[in-house]
Structures are given as C-alpha cells and as structure tokens.
C-alpha cells in the first residue's frame, strides 16, 4: 500500500517537473497542479500506516490527523495559486496572443556583449 503511494508521488512529481520546464504557461499550470497533488500525497504518506475512522467509543487506533490538517491547508493554498496563475496566463494571452514566457530584454542586451558566433540567445527567441 505504502509503496503504491510512494510510487504515485514519484510519478506525479516527475511529470509535474517535466511540465513546468516548458515555456507555455498552460503546461506550467498543469505541472504545478500535479506537483501540488504529489506534495499532498507525500504529506499523507508521512503520517504512517492508515487507521480506522475517529469515531468516539471505538477502541482501535485512528490514523494520525495532523498531516491531514496540514494537507488540507496545502490544498486550499495551491487551489488559490492555480487560479492566480490562470489569471496571469489569461492576461498574457490578451497582451501577446499566446501564453509563452518571454525573454528578458535586458538579459539579451547583456548577452550581446559576448559576441562569439555561437551565442544561443538569439536562436532561443521566437
């Protein structure tokens, strides 16, 4: 059981990291959604083995509630931030017509000081 949980965390994390290295904000948002799930699952996994539901009168051991409280807080925060990122992507779409992350002009100006022909900065621009 725990192995399945850990494997899921690993899978979600790797896909999430792959997605946020992309230049498209849409993919980045999806990546963060997956990473957020992975983090929440990791928090749950940290609480140890599952227990029975916390009903008064039952004698059996209940599962540790603290990581669940932490996970809930984390879910709420990541939900709000996903919405903010979506708003940002929408604004970018209105301004430029796509949702790609742009280069920094000042960085490119500095990079031009290096006039070796192999500078990949120019090629990276669309």
């Amino acid at each position: 059981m725990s192995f399945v949980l850990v494997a899921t965390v690993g899978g979600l994390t790797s896909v999430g990291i792959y997605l946020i290295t992309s230049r498209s904000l849409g993919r980045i948002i999806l990546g963060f959604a997956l990473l957020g799930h992975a983090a929440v699952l990791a928090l749950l996994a940290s609480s140890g083995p599952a227990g029975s539901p916390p009903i008064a009168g039952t004698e059996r051991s209940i599962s540790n509630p603290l990581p669940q409280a932490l996970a809930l807080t984390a879910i709420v925060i990541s939900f709000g931030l996903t919405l903010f990122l979506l708003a940002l992507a929408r604004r970018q779409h209105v301004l430029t017509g796509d949702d790609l992350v742009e280069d920094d002009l000042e960085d490119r100006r500095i990079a031009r000081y290096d006039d070796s022909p192999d500078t990949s900065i120019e090629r990276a621009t669309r």
Partner: protein
Amino acid sequence: MNTLITMTIIGPLLAAAAGMAFRRSARLRDISTLTGVASAAIASFGMLWQVSSNGATAVRVGAWNPELGIVLVVDLFAALVLPVALSVILVVEIFAFGQRRTAWGANPELTGPLLSVLTAGVSLAILTGDLFTLFVAFELILVSSYVLLTHQGQREQIRSGMTYVVMNLLASTLFLFGLAIVYAATGTVNIALLAERIPDLSEGVRIGIGMWFLVVFGTKAALFPLFSWLPDSYPTAPTTITAVFAGLLTKIGIYAMIRFHTLTGMDDLGPVLLIVAGITMLVGALGALAQNDIKRILSFHVISQIGYMLMGLGLFSVAGTTGAILFLVHHMPVKTVLFLVGGLIENHQGTSALDRSGGLVRSRPLIAFLFAIPALSLAGLPPFSGFVAKLAVIDAGVEGLSTSIVVCALVAGILTLLSMTKIWLGAFWGPSPETGSSTTSTALNRKIMTGATMLAVGGTLTISLFAGSIFDLSQEAAIQLINEDSYITLVLS
C-alpha cells in the same frame, strides 16, 4: 506581552480588511492601512523592549500542546529583526502616498491593503515556532507579493512576474515536500521539538533535511544557483513595491535559514554554506557591474549582500551568527533606502537608466546626499552601519580560519563600492539629460517622498549610532540560537 504579539499579526490583517472595505474612500482606506502597519511597528518595538529587559516568551495559540498547535516565539532574534522589518514597511507606505500621482506609482486601492497583508505575513514568519506556520506565512507574503508585482498588468510586469511566480511556487511546493520528509522522520514540525530530535537522526537523513531546506529557503533568499528570478522581476515593479521586496522578502528567507539551521544544529553543512556564500557574493557583485539601470544594479546587490549573511551563518559559531544577525538588521533599511532614492531619481529624471540621466548633484543635491549615505553604508565604509556589520562577519571569518571566504567578502566589498561609484558617476555627475523631468508629481508629493526617504536614512544612521548595543543584542540572540536548550525549554515548558 500577548497583546503585543497578536497585535503585530492581527493588526495588519484587520487593517487590510478595513482597507478593502473602504475602497471607495481614499482617506479612510489610507488611514486604516497606515494605522494597521504603524500599530504593528509600535507593538514590535514594545516587544523588543520587553524581551531585552524580561527575557524571551512563547505564546501557545489556543493553548494547544506545542506538538499539535501553533506556538509564537519571541526570542531575542525575532524581537530584534521584527521592529526593523515593520519600520521599513511603514516608511515605504508613507513614501507610496507621495508617489501615488506619478507615472511609477502603484494602484493605491490595492497597494495599501496588500502591503498590510504582507506585513502580517512578515510578522508571522518571524514569530512562528513551527515549520508549517512558517510555510503559511511565506504563502501570505508571496501571494500578496505576486499581486503587488503584477497588478498593473503591463506586458513587462506580466513577463517578469511569471518568472517570479513560477520560481517561488516551485520553492513553496518543495517546502511542502520538505515538511512531509521532516514529519516522516521526526513526527513533528515544531521547531523546538525538531531541535531536540533532528540531532538524533542518522547522519544521512539529517544532512538530507538540511540540504532540502537550504534549497527551499535559498530560493526565497536568492542564493547563488537559485537567484535568477530576482534581478528579472524586482526592477519592473513600482519603486515602492521593489523597495519592500528588496528590503524584506529575501531577508525573510535568510532569517528562516538562520533560525532553522542553527537551532537544529546543521554544523555539518558549514562548508557547503560557505562555498555558496562566496559564489553568491561574487556573482551578485559582478552581475551588478554589467547593468545600466539603477534598479537592476541594486537588485544584483541584494543577491551579493545575502552572501554575507549566509557566510555568517555558515561559520556556525557565535561570532558568525552574531555577524549574520547584525548584517540582517543593517541591510533591511539600507537596501530599502537605496531603492527609495532610486525612485526619487526616477521621479526627477523620468528614467532610472544611467546613460540617460546625470547632473543630479547640481540640480538635486538633497537626493545626492540621501543616496551617498546608504551607498557608502552598503559598500561597508566606516562609520556607517555596513562597516560594523561587515567587520563583525569578516572578523568571525578570520576567527574561524576560513581565509578564502574572507577574501571573497573583501573582493565583493570592493566591487560593491565600484558599482556604487558607477551609479554616482552616471546619475549624479556628468551633464544633465536634455529631456529633463517628465513627471506629473506635485511639490507636495515630492515633499512626502523625500521626507520618507530622509526618515529611512535617519533610521540607518540610528543603527550605526547604536551599533554597540545592537551588537550586544545580536550576540545574545546568537548565543540563544547556537545553544538551542534555552529555546527548547522556552517553547516546551
């Protein structure tokens, strides 16, 4: 005491709510947000006075057992950093009133309430006694900073805002993973309990946790390989916003690092921290030399100066930590003032690009004066506060026999002086630009802005004036951090 502690967190939050409620009436909104931040600042000074005379206190919120509930801890370190941080926000908020009618002013409807939320986040991050509340406080700070950075919705801001948001969101997610790792290893997120339990862990797990949080806090603090978001995003925001970010946000990262890594006894990480510190200092200072815009130069210096604080921490000695704390206290107001002066220059000349400005020393000698003091302080020249702070850090380095890091620190100091000279040559000497000032500010606006900057310069001078007693307080705070026993008994009993 309890009232004072809650005041620094609840006060600004209530003020933010009032500020949003009074959106339509500018005067009510300004009064309520200013009152919130001012009351928090006053309360924090009260706390410093109380702690330095009666000793540290801890408050259990809702009287929960510290293993389960939230604990707010006011030790000397927190009590020393908090008043400086809150005063910085207060000064910037006054500056923002003056800047509001200029082309660089931020939207006042949002700035006031958001700065109040940020203030609450800063207080919570400094006072909290457990890692998860630290995470929530970081989020409080970051969410308001995301909105402050991008709310004007211009193309440049959205572009740089994206880098900023994505980097910080990644760091926050890693923070969550770190919490899961820490909880799985020790069964708690309370820092006092961690200080008890982490030294008992096996060496691999302990170093793993230390490195993980080095990456998490290092991204917030803009350490060497993780700083790329900072010089991109800071200069595009309105000056007031940049001033707060530069003065506080990275410093909260380094604050968390000092607290976590000293209390949990991560001495093994010392060499790693020192190497990162050295590279951070040099890369930041060298990066600044290549820039042409005042705000960008200053942004790179934010990175460079973080290196000094990390160096103090990396020595893991009382002297080193004292230096780091002193540097933190000195750096927050100085950096903010420099950005505020950058805002004054921008307001006067219509640009902050060095090749399109000049001659300010004749047309605006006051601005030149206000720039010179914090710039010399940043470069570490006596008798300003930067000298005392740098001396403390470098002295600790010499004492710790870490010659190479001391050399790095001295070279970075010279480079800092060099780029301050560059700003001076570009903006203050030389011929005035033909375009002249193209701003819409009134005389009153200028007076408020200059007044706020003068207030902040006065603050930095006060720090250098009372450097002796601040050094003693820092030393006491460092002893409390290095010998974690007093912190543990304070929180747990």
